[in-house]
């Protein structure tokens, strides 16, 4: 069992790590790169708590091997804010109280950002279906959906 050396980009920064072949991207992010924003809720792609963006695509970090990250560009919740300026989605999640415990929040934020980059003016149904892979057990989703729609409206106005 020899470790694999991987060079990648994490939230715009060059990053490299050693990992075993079995390790998932989520394992690597959390245990090797100290980025614990992505959470493991299931480890099987059913809950979305580990949502990250790889080369522009929204994925579950638990369903990708760390070794596959070579040469890719990875974006996580830790990269959403610009300095001390929160992303509009982050602000709207707070304004709308769209989180209770907060464990699903990083994944939802990353997933919602990915939606708004493709569809700046989604309707409620589009938001609900896009986020269907992100389980939240606390909120009943109501305030989350409102926060995403409100952030989308604000981002459209700003652009």
């Amino acid at each position: 069992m020899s470790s694999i050396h991987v060079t990648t980009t994490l939230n715009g920064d060059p990053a490299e790590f050693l990992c075993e072949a079995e390790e998932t991207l989520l394992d690597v992010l959390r245990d090797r790169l100290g980025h614990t924003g992505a959470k493991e809720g299931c480890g099987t792609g059913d809950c979305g708590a580990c949502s990250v963006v790889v080369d522009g695509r929204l994925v579950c970090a638990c369903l990708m091997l760390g070794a596959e990250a070579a040469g890719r560009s990875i974006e996580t919740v830790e990269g959403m804010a610009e300095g001390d300026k929160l992303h509009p989605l982050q602000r709207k999640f707070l304004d709308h109280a769209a989180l209770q415990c907060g464990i699903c929040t990083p994944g939802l934020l990353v997933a919602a950002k990915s939606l708004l980059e493709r569809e700046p003016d989604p309707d409620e149904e589009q938001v609900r279906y896009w986020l269907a892979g992100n389980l939240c057990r606390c909120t009943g989703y109501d305030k989350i959906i409102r926060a995403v729609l409100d952030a989308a409206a604000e981002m459209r106005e700003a652009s």
Partner: protein
Amino acid sequence: MNYQAPTTLKDAVTLMQGDTGNCRILAGGTDLLVRLRSEMEEPDTVIDIKRIAELDEIAEEGGGWRIGAAVSGVRMAEHAALVAAWPGVVEAMNLIGSTQIQSRATMAGNLCNASPAADSVPAMVAAEAVARVVGPDGARDVPVAEIPTGPGRTSLARDELIASIFLPAPQTRAADAYLRFIPRTEMDIAVAGCGVWLALDAAGTCTAARVAVGAVGPTVRLVEDAGAALVGSKLEPDALDALAEACSAAATPIDDKRGTAAYRVHVAGVLARRAAVIAAKRAGDTT
């Protein structure tokens, strides 16, 4: 475990051929990584095929479409010409899992995983899709229906992989559709699924039809009686009843955590009826 990411198909085949242990192909990984995680599978080698350029493209071929084994569901959904040609196949693929899964899951992977409930397979069977199987002796083309041989089993040799899936050139006044039933609105495995392809004449009479059902038997099944029930009809209620009955009759499901056998038998027919109506509407719209 040994991770390999070859950049040519030839290298991939050489790696498979030279591997003496349990070797698995990693395309989207949305099934394989779940099995690794649950320790259902502990391969010695994993061959990641996503760095092989020729497997990562959707190419037009004689009016049909060749979809590389590494092409994800979202790439298919974004390909307007493919969606126009085979809306049922693309929607079947896109029903699998979440947005996140769609970024990774591949149709060839869905096929090779050989789950009786694989969503894309009934649609591909109805579309008469053909898999290009590559091994040490070169390539061979195999109808998709002949790839799965039972739950988790395929007809591929241990040193073969699927390089691409070919969807034939669409016909005029013909279209496909796929529907499945799940308990929730998303994220579930099909309790039953049905893919329908049909062609109409200028008067709207069905001239040919293929109907395949999934999750109601050990493998996806092409139901010839169901297709025959539509031919010659304008999808009148009687024809749809006969279609539904044929699909229910062809279903040999089991009771499990996702549904009862009786329920699956019934719903297979309901889905066939609904999918046929959608396909006919699409076929009419193509003129």
